[in-house]
């Protein structure tokens, strides 16, 4: 072995050793129990506030197995690195969070560190929850502690190497985690600030509406610019582009309708966003939903891609004709000849940003699998669309999706049968 190589190897081993020592030194452990620590403030008022905030944070969606006991965990989440089993967060001493203090809970919300000091996987949206105030965290804690404890043991996650090494999360944290409570922007209104607090904090909207890279992280510079939701195979549209789900041209009422009722005169929520409305947003007060709408409408618009060129929008005449025929037979009854729909019951397709945006995934999935808007307090009996996957072949779905993307001066681009085949192969969820 050459001398230079040997020196390099020894140096590398030395650096690795120091890094390991530093890692162990800085790795958090249990929090010390503060003398005279104040117990949670279990007044009804605080618990009710905590319940409301827990809904704003949509805790129940992940921490409850469908049909299972509330907050008892057990739900499997498939992520690109394996399977995560969401933990029990009922106040059971052995299997839940019964022994957690309000300090433990705040550290978890604020910095993604569990009670025993282990680093949490960022599937838990602590990168957003870090913005939650101590008072709000305490209220959520008081609510969680007021729930009936459920004895249900957590299952260990099934993650591939190296993702099963929790300590390596220190790297992810250095790259993508910026902790800190929400700091109000004094140049904006109180309403805007309340909206920002809810959207960026408990709402954790960026978890889906910001693209996620191969390391499971997302860049602040791309915040709210949209992206595919890993493993769910739905596209979370950009909230900053008026060509996607940017709300710059929407009225406040249209936005609050969409968020609170699940339907509006512009569009309807389906898939993962239907889940968010069903479990979380429908329960928020009119004031809070309006604050979110005000904030979302004012998000800076930055269209990162140019509108499609005329040549990109070219459609073969026979495809257009096939699409038109299928549309007339299967779609006109509800969406109308001019694609105007019967809003809010049946959404419009003409000038609907979610139809024309560059990713056709959501439109294709709707045609294949259909969908019901969520049943909400404001819209308890939503209308629905049937699946067509068993009726239409790939070429037919491609033709009709192409048709609705370009008809009525819609600015979308054609889709191919191969794109349909890919989405047909996945199990709908």
């Amino acid at each position, binding site marked *: 072995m050459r001398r230079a190589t040997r020196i390099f190897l020894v140096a590398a081993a030395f650096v690795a050793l120091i890094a390991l020592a530093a890692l162990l030194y800085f790795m958090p452990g249990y929090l010390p129990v503060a003398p005279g620590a104040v117990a949670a403030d279990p007044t009804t008022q605080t618990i009710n506030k905590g319940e409301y905030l827990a809904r704003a944070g949509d805790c129940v969606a992940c921490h409850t197995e469908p049909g299972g006991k509330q907050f008892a965990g057990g739900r499997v989440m498939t992520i690109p690195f394996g399977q995560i089993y969401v933990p029990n967060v009922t106040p059971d001493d052995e299997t839940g969070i019964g022994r957690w203090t309000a300090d433990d809970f705040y550290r978890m919300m604020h910095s993604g560190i569990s009670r025993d000091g282990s680093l949490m996987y960022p599937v838990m949206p602590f990168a957003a929850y870090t913005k939650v105030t101590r008072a709000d965290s305490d209220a959520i804690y008081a609510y969680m502690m007021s729930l009936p404890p459920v004895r249900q043991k957590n299952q260990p996650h099934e993650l591939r190497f190296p993702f099963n090494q929790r300590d390596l999360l220190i790297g992810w944290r250095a790259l993508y985690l910026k902790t800190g409570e929400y700091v109000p922007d004094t140049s904006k209104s109180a309403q805007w600030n309340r909206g920002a607090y809810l959207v960026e904090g408990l709402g954790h909207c960026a978890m889906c509406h910001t693209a996620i890279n191969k390391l499971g992280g997302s860049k602040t510079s791309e915040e709210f610019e949209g992206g595919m939701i890993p493993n769910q195979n739905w596209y979370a549209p950009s909230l900053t582009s008026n060509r996607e789900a940017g709300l710059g041209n929407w009225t406040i009422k249209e936005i609050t309708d969409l968020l609170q009722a699940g339907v509006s005169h512009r569009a309807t929520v389906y898939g993962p966003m239907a*889940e968010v409305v069903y479990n979380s947003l429908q329960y928020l007060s009119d004031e809070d939903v309006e604050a979110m709408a005000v904030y979302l409408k004012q998000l800076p618009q930055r269209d990162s891609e140019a509108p499609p060129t005329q040549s990109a929008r070219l459609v073969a005449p026979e495809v257009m004709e096939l699409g038109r025929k299928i549309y007339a*037979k299967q779609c006109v009854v509800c969406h109308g000849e001019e694609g105007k729909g019967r809003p809010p019951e049946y959404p419009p397709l003409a000038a609907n940003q979610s139809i024309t945006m560059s990713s056709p995934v959501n439109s294709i999935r709707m045609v294949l*699998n259909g969908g019901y808007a969520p049943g909400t307090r404001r819209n308890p009996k939503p209308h629905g669309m*049937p699946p067509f996957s*068993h009726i*239409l072949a790939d070429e037919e779905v491609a033709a009709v999706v192409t048709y609705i993307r370009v008809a009525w001066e819609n600015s979308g681009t054609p889709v191919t049968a191969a794109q349909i085949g890919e989405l047909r192969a996945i199990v709908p969820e």
Partner: protein
Amino acid sequence: MTALRLAIDLLLGARRPRADSGARAQAIRFIVSCVLAGASGAHAQDAAIPAFKTLDSMEARTQGCVTCHGQSGQGTGKEYFPRIAGKPAGYLYNQLVAFRDGKRVYPPMNYLIAYLPDAYLREMAEHFSKQRPAFKPKQPPAADAAVVARGTAIALSGDPSKQVPACITCHGQGLTGMEPGIPGLVGLSSSYIAAQLTRWRSGNRQAPPPDCMKRIAERLSEADIHAVATWLASQDPPANASPASSNLQKMPQACGSQM
């Protein structure tokens, strides 16, 4: 015809020693075209989405169901998608809740109604329970007389040696089901009935305990399932399609769906 014979052999995994490659390719094309025809069955039948009268109605709200179950719940296509019209509302409601909560597994249904509240699911169940559309044509009986006899026996008399009660003791004398929780078995395809019995037997499909149907399905052989499914699918529709009332008959077993 050669292609058909060969296709069946290929599907069953049987080998024909001297089948030439041309005939083989023809057979494979035949299978593919059959599968495609099945996949686009409703299209071939030229079915369009039905119109509805008023927007604010259950008829319009259940447009989400029509491509599989038909506008009145009569079922569609030759295969699988079951008739839901006229089944007891309690049964339909239990199924909708089980699909929504993932307790009954069929991903297209699990997805479609994932975010619908109980009260609305009950209304949907009541809507379809009141429908009385015409029945689809019955399917032909099994070609083998022994299979027909076995199917008849299980449906009408049961098999005491296996402790299998007759279908009609719980699913109604006219096989139109029993209020409030037992489904009718008329107007269903044999493939649907056989698939459901197989799922009960494997534990994939369940009901609230005591799960009588699980116990019964576990006692049935594959041949029994085939016999009773083809027999049920080949019956004439009843004159009165309404489910039987729950107080007319003593049930042979305790049933979680009737509690």
